């Protein structure tokens, strides 16, 4: 009698567990389907660009200036321009963004002023990029008289990604456990020492990741660059930042005119001659490749630092 009751209830338990496990499986399948359809769109887009641009995806394309003839046009000035703009953007937004994040996270008193600043930083991340372009047009191009220069473009994109850098940096500063800070304070460290010797080094991985994510957003931005007057036809290179003789670098390139990858693409897409569409697709594939590469580096950096520090 007892045995049968126990057996019956055991079967009930098993039936119940099986039913719930089916639900578990259903969710896995639904989740995978959704994820793969999102990935699939990206992969198809990329493959489509590669397929369409295939005739132009060669070394000449990378080493030629733009031209009136589609088959002779290349992206040399565009990728050099983009690289120099990214260099400027990274150099400007990294120190400012990290310093702002350190102040907000470690130093700012917790009052309404700080709260307003925090809310605004988060909001700035959502401001349409063309608004940044208009702001930069008034401020950098006219007020600071930078004109249509790489410096103006770099500064504009710095503004654009600063909120991203600040938010990402704050996240990774916050991830340093309180116990570690207390350990350093208990040894007599000042707030600056705690930040510089511990908090900052331990969050480098997250900060670099945020920085790269920000840059990969900036690399594809077109609207603000059009607003501040990027040229679409540049048949020369800016002066090289590296020099053969002392002091081995130069900043003359900062003041030169430029074009950038998305601008070049935009220019080709808007031409009626279908031959230019091939160029646009090829440039698009390369730009997408650059972005994916940067994100790949970000993932690698995060992985490296995670492996070294696990709390």
């Amino acid at each position, binding site marked *: 009698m007892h045995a049968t009751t126990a057996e019956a209830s055991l079967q009930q338990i098993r039936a119940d567990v099986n039913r719930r496990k089916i639900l578990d499986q259903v969710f896995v399948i639904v989740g995978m389907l959704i994820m793969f359809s999102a990935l699939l769109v990206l992969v198809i887009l990329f493959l489509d660009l590669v397929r369409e641009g295939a005739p132009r995806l060669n070394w000449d394309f990378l080493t030629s200036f733009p031209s009136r003839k589609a088959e002779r046009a290349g992206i040399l000035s565009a990728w050099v321009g983009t690289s120099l703009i990214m260099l400027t953007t990274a150099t400007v937004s990294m120190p400012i963004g990290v310093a702002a994040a350190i102040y907000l996270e470690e130093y700012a008193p917790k009052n309404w002023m700080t709260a307003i600043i925090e809310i605004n930083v988060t909001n700035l991340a959502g401001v349409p990029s063309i608004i940044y372009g208009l702001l930069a047009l008034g401020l950098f191009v006219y007020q600071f008289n930078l004109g249509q220069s790489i410096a103006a473009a770099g500064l504009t994109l710095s503004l654009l990604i600063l909120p991203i850098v600040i938010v990402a940096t704050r996240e990774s500063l916050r991830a340093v*456990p309180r*116990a570690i800070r207390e*350990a350093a304070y*208990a*040894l007599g*460290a000042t707030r600056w020492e705690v930040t510089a010797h511990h908090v900052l080094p*331990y969050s480098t991985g997250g900060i670099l990741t945020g920085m790269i994510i920000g840059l990969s957003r900036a690399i594809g931005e077109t609207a603000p660059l059009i607003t501040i007057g990027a040229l679409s036809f540049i048949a020369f290179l800016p002066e090289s930042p590296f020099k053969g003789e002392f002091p081995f670098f130069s900043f003359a390139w900062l003041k030169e005119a430029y074009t950038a990858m998305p601008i070049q693409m935009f220019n080709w897409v808007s031409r009626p001659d279908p031959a230019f569409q091939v160029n646009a697709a090829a440039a698009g594939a390369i730009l997408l490749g650059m972005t994916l590469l940067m994100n790949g580096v970000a993932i690698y950096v995060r992985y490296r630092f995670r492996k070294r520090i*696990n709390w």
Partner: protein
Amino acid sequence: MTPRPSVEATRRPANAEEALVVKSRAEGLSFYYGAVRALKDLNIEIREKRVTALIGPSGCGKTTFLRCFNRMHDLTPGTRYEGRIILFPDSIDLVDKGVDPIEVRMRIGMVFQKPNPFPKSIFENVAYGLRVRGLRSKPRVEEEVERALRRAAIWDEVKDRLDSSGLSLSGGQQQRLCIARALATNPEILLFDEPTSALDPIATARIEELIAELRDQVTVIIVTHNMQQAARVSDYTAFMYLGELIEFDNTSKLFTNPSQKATEDYITGRYG
């Protein structure tokens, strides 16, 4: 109301005659988290080169009291001290607003509840306090690091891998590393905040042994929720309840013949 501790430490009959120096004295110490009064008018004397245990049920304020000694509360906005904690021999008031908390923490070390080594090498963990104090000479730093690791009874286990991460050690080793880190700068008082609560019994025993060895070298204040531990390692014990100091006495006296009913109820396990 609080009975004064007897002058001779009964646990140490051999040393019964020695004069016990007061290292620190809390006078009318109260502490506030915002409007909440967490410590109420504490008066207690900490003897030099002795182990003083703070016991009491959860939330009684023992950790709060401990963290007054190195001004850890200053890191939390909205906290306030009242009264004084005098540190001898120079009679400065540790909780005085005019005394820099960094100066206090340079003189008073702390070991935390959970081992919290820096994610740096074992060597750098121990050297950090020295570096903060501006010690640059490499041989001096190496010498001090070795001395601290020996005092913390972990030298033999780590001497061949001083360059590996402090996080690669086991929990008990990490805690001894943290003790070495605190000892490296020769603190006058070493604070232990439930140092074994995250450790297994064997690691706990080693830490207790270590505290017993340290008692001749440094003044120790240890918070513990484990009464056996207090009985094993301490010379004096303070029993706290709801932010008040109920009883303070020789450890053996307090555990065998408490003068307060509340103490007796707690040590016999009637609450806690």
